[in-house]
């Protein structure tokens, strides 16, 4: 059975930019091990000769013409939704030292 330690959980949380409380970390560690145990039933399924199904529509080459589109976007709302802005730019915590 796959065990996910709390350290493993924290590593994943770090990748996902998600701060977890110690309680959440402990809880996820035991729950996720159970869930992974449940999904391990797939190990027994024989998939020889099959190709993975990423999409079910059978569509391909769905493209658009290289033309401008008016999406009728409410630009005012777009900018009002910004948590922080300056001179029309998105203001974020400093990216590089």
């Amino acid at each position, binding site marked *: 059975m796959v065990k996910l330690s709390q350290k493993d959980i924290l590593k994943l949380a770090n990748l996902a930019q998600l701060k977890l409380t110690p309680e959440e970390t402990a809880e996820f560690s035991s729950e996720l091990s159970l869930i992974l145990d449940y999904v391990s039933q797939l190990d027994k399924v024989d998939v020889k000769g099959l190709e993975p199904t*990423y999409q079910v529509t059978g569509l391909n*080459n769905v493209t*658009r013409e290289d033309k401008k*589109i008016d999406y009728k976007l409410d630009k005012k709302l*777009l900018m009002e939704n910004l948590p922080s802005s300056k001179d*029309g730019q998105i203001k974020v915590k400093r*990216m*590089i030292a």
Partner: protein
Amino acid sequence: MINKNKYLYKGYLPTIGIECHVQLKTKTKLFSGIDNDARDAKPNTLVSHICFGLPGSLPVLNEEALVLGSKAGFALNSRPQRNSHFDRKHYFYPDLPKGYQITQFEAPIVLGGSVKIVVNDEDLVIGITRAHLEEDAGKSTHDVGKDYSLVDLNRAGTPLLEIVSEPDIHSSAEAKAYARELHLLMQYADVSEANLYYGNMRFDVNVSVSKDDNLGTRSETKNLNSFKSVEKTVDYEIKRQVDLLEKGQAIVQETRGFDDSKQRTFSQRTKEDAHDYRYFPEPDIPPIVLSDEFIDSIKLSMPIMPDAWRASLSTAKLDSAQIELLLESEIENPSVSYLSVINQFLDKPEELKKIANWIINIEIPLRKEKPSLTLYDDSVRSKQYIEVFKLLNSGDLSSNGTQELITYLLTSEEEIIDVSVFANKKGLTQNSNKDELGDIVSKILADNPKAVDDIKSGEDKVIGFLVGQVMKASKGSANPGLAQKIIRDQINSL
């Protein structure tokens, strides 16, 4: 096998691979119908819900990106893959709105290929691993001394082709030549504006050094936007790494930047905080299946590429410096084409050589000097050049007159069709009529008996004086070579 010895620096062999991001010349972004040209736009004005990564926004692929990506495939001496698809690449950064970049990981549009370069008269082939389509990130600025950065998403979603080379490069000169050649290829294939100033082509340079057959730890210097910075980076990194190793220190695998003012690289982040990108196939974009018809039509649409020009032009005995000058000049100003004029003479080596020389020596400098010069159709210019060639060949035009005539033709405010009439009117043709010239010469000889005697007594250089007199008398229209011949004939028969 390469000759390692010539590359060795203090006994270390440098190995270089280059990743180049080429901005594709589409009108709109890769996944949204928003203007691609953000050069003069105010921040966050060329954006949609897609560029902003709003909830519920979905990418819709620009068909032109497939055309340009396929052209690039042929330009890279390869061909587009029949099957390709997009994947998501995950990392968090404020200029990456969705928290993932849509790129091609598993099945890129181009696999394999090569680029030929010439360094020190030696032909080299640099392998291309792959080229894939992906969206660009936004642009961020970091004002000095502030605790914040500002993000503009106008550039987010601009289509890029990332071209990944094999680690086949071993010197800064080769790196520079490769970058330069890619730049030519992308422009000739009409894939990109390839304007380096605007960052249309950005190079990431991977450098490692090693004393044995194993590759050393590499550094990756990102976002170089000139051939010179590519060259300087390679030189700097080879020296830095070898110096470290010589001091017994280890190379850290890391991302570096290039400081233009100091002409050196600097550490940006080490691989410790490297990402696990968690790629998986993009479920919002159905896969790409290019038909044979599509691939063939792209192949047919490919223009003459630099290597083909080099072959044609060198058979016309142009030297490689001239050829490269022509190839470079061709793309400097997208509204002028020299090669399409030259193209008319590919099967006439004599004309080709002459006209190519005129273009190199007269037209190109002239247009550089006066960029606003009226440009006549390629067909008009071709006709004018062939007329000039005929006039020169028949002796009606002097070499000096040729330069003047071509300058007139190029700078004229009206299109000049009948070149010889025009040359006559401008007094640029020379008189080659023997009878007329004979009369003038007889008169000059009669007026200058002393000069005639001097020549007879062996002072041959005096003949120049007599030719000058004939030119003066003919108001410059005489063919000086013919005048000299008649002078000698008449003196000998005196």
